């Protein structure tokens, strides 16, 4: 058994900079590269792409990333763990094998984890007594079942470890939890068992710290003036030990900052009850961790306590829930705020003239620059200019498009100083509703398969 394993986290979300993984494999030592490509909305987009093209529905960014990094990855023997499979891990697998062949790389072992996508099984599950109630408000799934776009179980770290044990150098999952991308390699390397709750909690916590990439290495940090060289910000590297302690660090010579405060910031990100962080493999008690600086850009976490997981998996379902759009114009001074408010009233008034009205909860008016993000806390009564941002949402797509046609006319038919209409007419886009639910673990079987280039 290795006494230390280095796990880098190169993508915090689909759309994160490709420089993260590219630099992680080049600028310092690394055993594993973890990459997260999924969010709740992403799964529904991928299902749509797959319904039009059976070879689509995965994160194509992942293949583009490998196009640049495979030579380093194969030469250095770095293992890659990603949830890039989206709703079509099989297609992602074939795309990666094609890429390897194109690059003349023989013998690359690529594995997939399947079983998280339960969209086709939902009717049968509901009929057989698994109601998939909305876990926030208890509504029955029947209220949205005919509009479902995706349904995925959050799969944990043991499936990742199983795929690694089967020999994969590249592990492609569907809806793996973000922390599982880090805890999975630890289970594999250190032989942790399903009842090693403290160690699994430590792996989960390490994954939670790393899962947003540079958000633990100086990104989005309150005391941002302390951070050097944002351009070359280092992505996180977790230095894991068999006993569950780990060090959060980054490669030498990279920009950014790792200290007690950058790590604690990220520990609190998207946190509920810090005593009970729920995951598919364990519950983790974030209040048990000892956090200490042990060197420049090195923070060690130890003493982490965990407990058994719940008997259910979390399921993320999405459904079509109407349409929305937003449009914006810039209004210069003098009197930018008063003129922007008038512009908003003109838009609603003209729409009403044409028989198109929206309820209060279906509309938004924001005067960006006058105090939107911190409404009621920090506002400015007389800024030199504001961005007027108007939006609507409802179940009638035509009404949403009708709204979009009344923004630009304000340039010539409203108060003076209205500009910035470069985006053209805003068009209706789908609202993807999010439906969190729980499903008995006995109903889900994941399976892994490895192919060789």
């Amino acid at each position, binding site marked *: 058994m290795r006494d230390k394993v280095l796990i880098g986290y190169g993508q915090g979300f689909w759309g994160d900079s490709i420089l993260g993984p590219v630099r992680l494999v080049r600028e310092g030592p690394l055993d594993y590269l973890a990459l997260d490509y999924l969010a*709740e*909305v992403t799964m529904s987009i991928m299902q749509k792409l797959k319904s039009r093209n059976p070879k689509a529905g995965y994160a194509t960014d992942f293949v583009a990333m490998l196009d640049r990094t495979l030579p380093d990855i194969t030469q250095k023997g770095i293992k890659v763990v990603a949830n890039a499979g989206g709703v079509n891990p099989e297609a992602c697998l074939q795309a990666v094998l094609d890429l390897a062949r194109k690059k003349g790389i023989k013998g690359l072992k690529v594995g997939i984890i399947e079983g998280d996508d339960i969209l086709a099984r939902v009717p049968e599950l509901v009929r057989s007594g698994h109601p998939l109630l909305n876990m*926030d408000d208890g509504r029955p799934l029947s209220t949205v079942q005919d509009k479902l776009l995706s349904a995925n179980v959050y799969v944990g770290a043991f499936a990742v470890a199983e795929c690694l044990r089967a020999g994969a150098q590249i592990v492609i999952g569907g809806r793996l939890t973000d922390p599982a991308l880090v805890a999975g390699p630890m289970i594999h390397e250190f032989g942790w068992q399903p009842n090693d709750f403290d160690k699994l909690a430590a792996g989960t916590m390490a994954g939670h710290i790393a899962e947003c990439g540079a958000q633990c290495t100086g990104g*989005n*940090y*309150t*005391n941002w003036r302390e951070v050097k060289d944002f351009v070359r910000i280092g992505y996180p590297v977790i230095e894991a030990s068999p006993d569950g302690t780990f060090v959060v660090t980054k490669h030498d010579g990279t920009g950014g900052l790792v200290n*007690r*405060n950058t790590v*604690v*910031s*990220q*520990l*609190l*990100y*998207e*946190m*509920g*009850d*810090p*005593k009970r962080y729920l995951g598919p493999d364990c519950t983790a008690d*974030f*209040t*048990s*961790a*000892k*956090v200490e600086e042990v060197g420049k850009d090195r923070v060690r976490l130890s003493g982490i306590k965990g407990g058994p997981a719940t008997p259910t998996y979390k399921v993320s379902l999405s459904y079509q*829930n109407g349409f*929305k759009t*937003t449009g914006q114009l810039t209004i210069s001074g003098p009197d930018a705020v008063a003129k922007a408010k008038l512009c908003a009233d003109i838009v609603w008034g003209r729409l009403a003239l044409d028989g198109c009205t929206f309820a209060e909860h279906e*509309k*938004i008016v*924001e005067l*960006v620059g006058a105090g*939107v*993000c*911190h*409404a*009621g*806390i*920090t506002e400015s009564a007389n800024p030199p200019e504001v961005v007027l*941002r108007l*939006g*609507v*949402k409802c179940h009638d797509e035509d009404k949403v498009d009708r709204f979009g046609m009344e923004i630009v006319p304000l340039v010539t038919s409203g108060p003076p100083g209205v500009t910035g209409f470069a985006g053209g007419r805003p068009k209706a886009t*789908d*609202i*993807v*509703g*999010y439906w*969190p639910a729980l499903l008995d673990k006995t109903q889900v079987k994941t399976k892994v398969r490895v192919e060789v280039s």
Partner: protein
Amino acid sequence: MAKVKLKEFAFARSGDKGDGSNVGIFVTNAGDYEVLKRELTVERVKQHFRAICKGEVTRYEAPNLFALNFLLRDSLGGGGSESLKTDAQGKTHGLALLELEVER
């Protein structure tokens, strides 16, 4: 004791939790943590975010991190893809909390 804004000595990070946001705030020593616990009551935080948070506020403590975590329910205009707000994920709510003035 003097009146100071939290941004003078505290750190924060926020993000989305369904149709609400979580705001984590922490300090670097036990003395300041006592200030946080005393000053940042649920009522005070709810009042501070009255134009943003339409639901209930819950407070959790993490003494090992000198941290408090607040859940602000119904603070994102629907949350996720349903929200029309600029800050649909509550990314800036942490900095908003740091604007609060407290006795330290």
